[in-house]
């Protein structure tokens, strides 16, 4: 096939992928929502003054009036204990949550994928050992590890992320390993090997492009799950000081006021749920694109 034909083939493929994705209306809505969150985070990070936020890293407490008040014009989402405007706090918190979730998934996926691909390619005893190690890590529930890390290193959001990343990378290692193994079986890899291409090049040019796409789907789904877990841990108390804006922590602030001021707990929770939902919809849409069966 000539260069031009290859290009048109690729373009046709991309067009098909895009049309499949956008045919899934739910996925499009999800994408819009996720974009909204990302924009929020970016704004708070780089131009907080523009949207009227003056201290993006901390909650602004108003100790004179600690009792939560219901939504009103001055406070669109109401206030929570101790006198914190819920809306601005949530806007600030999205940045923190998004950042740490991306951090966890990025580390976990990067480390795990590399380990998985390399291990599958090297094979043999090395592969076996790596698999046993991932088994051990796999069976550690994130809670215990979070406990351990929290105890040794101290309770902070960063440490929590480390703990979660430690628990999460085996998933990617396993996933990419099985993908690599099945791609290795494909004859075109054999053909490349037979024509004398170096192992590293095979890994890079042939195996990676085939093994990676499903990993992206997994990443997008994990972003949601991690944020839910992250905020749940913060809800329990994994936070270094009492003024960090974080969605789970915000919910916990209102715990004592559930009966009188339910919005204090619910609104931050809904923010998390919405993000997880949206990201899952996007992941589903991606899956539609990548899975050859669903394409037809």
């Amino acid at each position, binding site marked *: 096939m000539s260069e031009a034909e290859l290009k048109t083939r690729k373009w046709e493929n991309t067009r098909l992928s895009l049309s*499949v994705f956008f045919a899934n209306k739910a996925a499009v809505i999800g994408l819009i929502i996720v974009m909204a969150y990302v924009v929020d985070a970016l704004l708070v990070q780089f131009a907080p003054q523009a949207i009227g936020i003056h201290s993006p890293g901390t909650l602004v407490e108003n100790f004179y009036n600690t009792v939560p008040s219901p939504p009103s014009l001055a406070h669109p989402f109401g206030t929570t204990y101790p006198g914190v405007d819920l809306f601005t706090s949530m806007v600030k918190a999205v940045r923190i949550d998004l950042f740490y979730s991306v951090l966890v998934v990025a580390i976990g996926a990067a480390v795990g994928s590399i380990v998985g691909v390399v291990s599958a390619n090297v094979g043999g005893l090395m592969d076996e050992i790596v698999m046993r190690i991932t088994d051990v890590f796999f069976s550690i529930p994130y809670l215990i590890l979070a406990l351990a890390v929290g105890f040794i290193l101290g309770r902070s959001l960063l440490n929590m992320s480390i703990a979660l990343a430690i628990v999460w990378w085996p998933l990617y290692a396993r996933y990419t390993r099985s993908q690599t193994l099945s791609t290795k079986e494909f004859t075109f890899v054999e053909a490349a090997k037979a024509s004398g291409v170096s192992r590293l090049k095979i890994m890079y040019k042939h195996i990676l492009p085939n093994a990676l796409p499903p990993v992206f789907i997994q990443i997008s789904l994990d972003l949601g799950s991690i944020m839910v877990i992250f905020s749940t841990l913060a809800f329990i108390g994994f936070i270094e000081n009492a003024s960090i804006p974080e969605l789970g922590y915000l919910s916990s602030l209102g715990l004592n006021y559930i009966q009188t001021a339910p919005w204090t707990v619910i609104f931050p929770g809904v923010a998390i749920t919405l993000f997880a939902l949206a990201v899952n919809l996007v992941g589903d849409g991606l899956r539609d694109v990548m899975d050859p069966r669903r*394409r*037809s």
Partner: protein
Amino acid sequence: MSYTLQVSDLNVQFYTRRGIYKALNGVDLSLKQGEIFGVAGESGCGKTTLGLTIMGLLPKNAAVTQGEVLLAGNRDLTACLRNAAPSEGEKFNIKQSEEAIKKLNRESCDIRGTKISMVFQDPMTSLNPVLQIGFQIAETIIAHQPRPLAERKIARTKVTHDDLGQIIKLLKEGADEQAINKYAESKNLHGIEDQVLSVWRRNDLGETKKEKIILSLHSEKLGSFEKLVLERVGSGKNIGGWMRIPGINRAAKNVLLKEGYIKATELLSMLEVPNPDKVVRMYPHELSGGMRQRIVIAIALANNPELVILDEPTSALDVTVQAQILELTRHLKHRFNTSFIFISHDLSVLSEVCDRIGIMYAGRIVEIAPIDAVFSRPLHPYTRMLTKAIPTIDGNEIQGIGGTVPDMRNVPIGCSFNPRCPDATEKCRSAKPSMVEVEEGHFVACFPKGD
């Protein structure tokens, strides 16, 4: 002449995101009783689709746009699917198709597994990995013919040593199946003849051993619960009434299942599976491909169907096993007068067993002929090229067929073979040839050859 199966002008399409694939474009076929009809062609010509359509096992993105499949003259197997197919210009409605398939499944329960059955291509995936072999065979027997099962067991309780001795005497004198049946009927031992005959017909045992086994088939004891279940089923009724209570239902089914396992063992020994009594308790992954295929065949034959469709039954197996299975097919045809549709891409395999062959190309049957005529007097250019492409032992030069199979989304206008045909004429490129009988029993769809 009564035809077991008649296919007229069958058109089947598959709807995908990449386009509409016209898998069958007007297939005509008449199957006589007791014949082995081969369907040959390259990959993608629609042979498997034909088999699936007859069984009604098409996926939900397929539609029968035209044509009918008649079983034994009066039962239209494709009515449901046809009604659900979109008419000209309409968009394909997958939900409608799903509904039609569900309806078809419900309606077909009384013919599938008992009048028609199918053996699929890949024995490695055809069997359920978590169920025992014996169960998978016995299940189909119990579903369709539970009564003979019950009768067998009841007969074993009633028969005496002397009766069995008498039957053996008859067999040694050369009595045939009918005579044994009559004897059993006269002594009110209906159900014993099946068991005796299956032991008698085994090839792996000596006569004394067989006698011993037959003589041990008596004085079986029954628990009272077993008796209740068997008598009820034996008189033709279903397990119903108070026996429907969950725990009891399971126990009642197990009574039948035990006998089903014994019948399954007999079936397997008929198919020359070694150690059948052990095999019935095994799981599919413990057996080789050849064994698994025999089991699938056993399931297909368990209820003596009128028609068995074999879809490339030997393609996934090695040659020695292939030979065994072909031998088996011949044997079964002679014994039970079952009609077979044998689908294969391998003409040499078909030449071993078939009475007639139909050559398929691009969704149509282009030639039908008795087996020797196909090889000695192939008429259609495609058939000729196929026969020349078979490697033979005298080392003749093999000639391939130029070009590729057409994209089934855009079937060529006129005769679908015309782009590759060395004898194509103007007429071939504009009109579709219909089947013409050139000599006795030899049909061809080709303008140059058919006139």
